[in-house]
């Protein structure tokens, strides 16, 4: 009976004194790291506040933590902040869904037709290299005020998405496909049974990149034309020289981006677990 389950952990029952010492050292180290993280944040905020109070930096330009807090509470109470944040969130989610769907479909087409992929390759390179922000006014004209935000968001994220997904398809071992071929699989079967499921981890990685890009696109789109949203708030705050408003919006944007990122991480972990990919 030579087949044994994979890893047998022996001696894991009664931790030895040395191991206990190791564990507590580890715990101390983790605590130290967390403390240092908090310390960095606190030091940053204190320094900021202090420098502003001492007049080393001009709080009118850079705001200061205490002002930010006041400003945040005011904006929140006025009820506007949640609305703006929600607008941006919604736009970002729509943008992500559209650009992931579009990107995946185009990547599948490119996988299907090597010819199309080859012919369009140089155009993809150009589109990838071109700073999409420059296209803002054009999107506005083409798509109108409502959809130009999505246009910008998708434009910024879709090319990278296509490239990453396509790359993922290519990285799936030739030999997995050879196995399929040996059973006489058609191209559709290969796509459905191997290419798509096998690229789930890569697809999740793409999604992670996509989130950041789409958010940038949404903000850029809001800069261009918007009725609400954090991008709108940033522009407006600048217009009326309310740096507090700008800073609060940026801080919320940071929180939003982390939240979205975390969400995608959870989704990714769930998808991977569901499909039994080791993380």
């Amino acid at each position, binding site marked *: 009976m030579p087949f*044994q389950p994979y890893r047998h952990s022996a001696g894991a029952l009664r931790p030895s004194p040395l191991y206990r010492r190791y564990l507590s050292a580890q715990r101390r180290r983790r605590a130290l790291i967390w403390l240092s993280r908090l310390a960095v944040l606190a030091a940053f905020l204190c320094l900021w506040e202090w420098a502003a109070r001492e007049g080393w930096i001009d709080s009118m330009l850079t705001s200061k933590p205490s002002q930010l807090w006041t400003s945040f509470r005011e904006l929140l109470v006025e009820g506007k902040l949640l609305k703006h944040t929600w607008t941006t969130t919604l736009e970002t989610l729509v943008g992500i869904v559209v650009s992931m769907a579009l990107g995946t479909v185009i990547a599948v087409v490119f996988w299907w037709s090597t010819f199309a992929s080859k012919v369009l390759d140089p155009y993809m390179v150009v589109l990838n290299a071109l700073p999409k922000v420059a296209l803002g006014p054009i999107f506005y004209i083409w798509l109108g005020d409502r959809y130009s935000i999505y246009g910008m968001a998708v434009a910024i994220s879709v090319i990278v998405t296509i490239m990453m997904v396509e790359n993922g398809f290519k990285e799936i071992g030739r*030999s997995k496909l050879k196995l399929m071929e040996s*059973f*006489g699989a058609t191209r559709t079967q290969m796509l459905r049974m191997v290419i798509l499921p*096998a690229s*789930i981890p890569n697809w999740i990685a793409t999604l992670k990149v996509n989130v950041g890009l789409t958010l940038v696109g949404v903000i850029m789109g809001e800069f261009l034309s918007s009725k609400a949203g954090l991008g709108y708030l940033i522009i407006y705050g600048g217009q009326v020289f309310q740096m507090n408003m700008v800073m609060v919006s940026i801080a919320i944007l940071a929180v939003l981006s982390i939240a979205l990122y975390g969400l995608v991480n959870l989704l990714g972990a769930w998808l991977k677990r569901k*499909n039994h990919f080791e993380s």
Partner: protein
Amino acid sequence: MAQIEMQDVSLSYFTPKQETEALRGIRLSIENGEFISIVGPSGCGKSTLLSLISGMLKPTSGKILIDGREVSGTSPKVGYMLQHDHLFEWRDVLSNLLVGAEIRRMDRKKAERKALELLERYGLGGFARHNPSQLSGGMRQRVALIRTLVTEPDILLLDEPFSALDYQTRLTLADEVHGIIKDQGKTAVLVTHDISEAITMADRVMVMSQRPSAISAVYDIRFEEGDSLSAWTKRESASYNSYFSTIWKELQAHAVSAV
């Protein structure tokens, strides 16, 4: 009539950079139920030979017949087993076993019954609902073999199926797989680098020459002690050593002649 027949088969690979003549004038015929091992220097075209038999490649010239019919495309008669198991992580063991059946649109119920029966028979009874990552390397290769057997091929092509395993697992699994294939009465063509594996598993060992390769020598493996020895006793028999050194020398000769 031989089950597999290759008549003056040649194959060249074409890439924009160069032409690689992999096989030149291969002739061989393999009987029903025979177990053939193929050894040869690396890159000589062993995998190519298997691909030709499986119908995934077309010969540049010559003919390949299976049961007297010319091969054109893959056929349900032939099962292919690769060096890596390529189990799909996103499917459990049972549904991995049904991959071939699914592709060939075989009756699902029947295929499932067959798969479960084979799992049981070859010592993996409790693992149908496990994920591939929960199996050891050797178990995974056995699952890969069963996946091939589920589609009920007459011929099994094995391309270095044990080379990714560690030494001890390799020795043990080779024995087992040999047993399974003989038990199922399949014809088998095994490609390997390991001369002792080739000798202990096969009825005939074919040695291929350097590229453009042909079959440079064929050895019928017969043990005085009888035919149904275990791999283990074969390894200890006197004829084993002489087969080993003959084949080794044959291989070395090709290596030298290539410089």
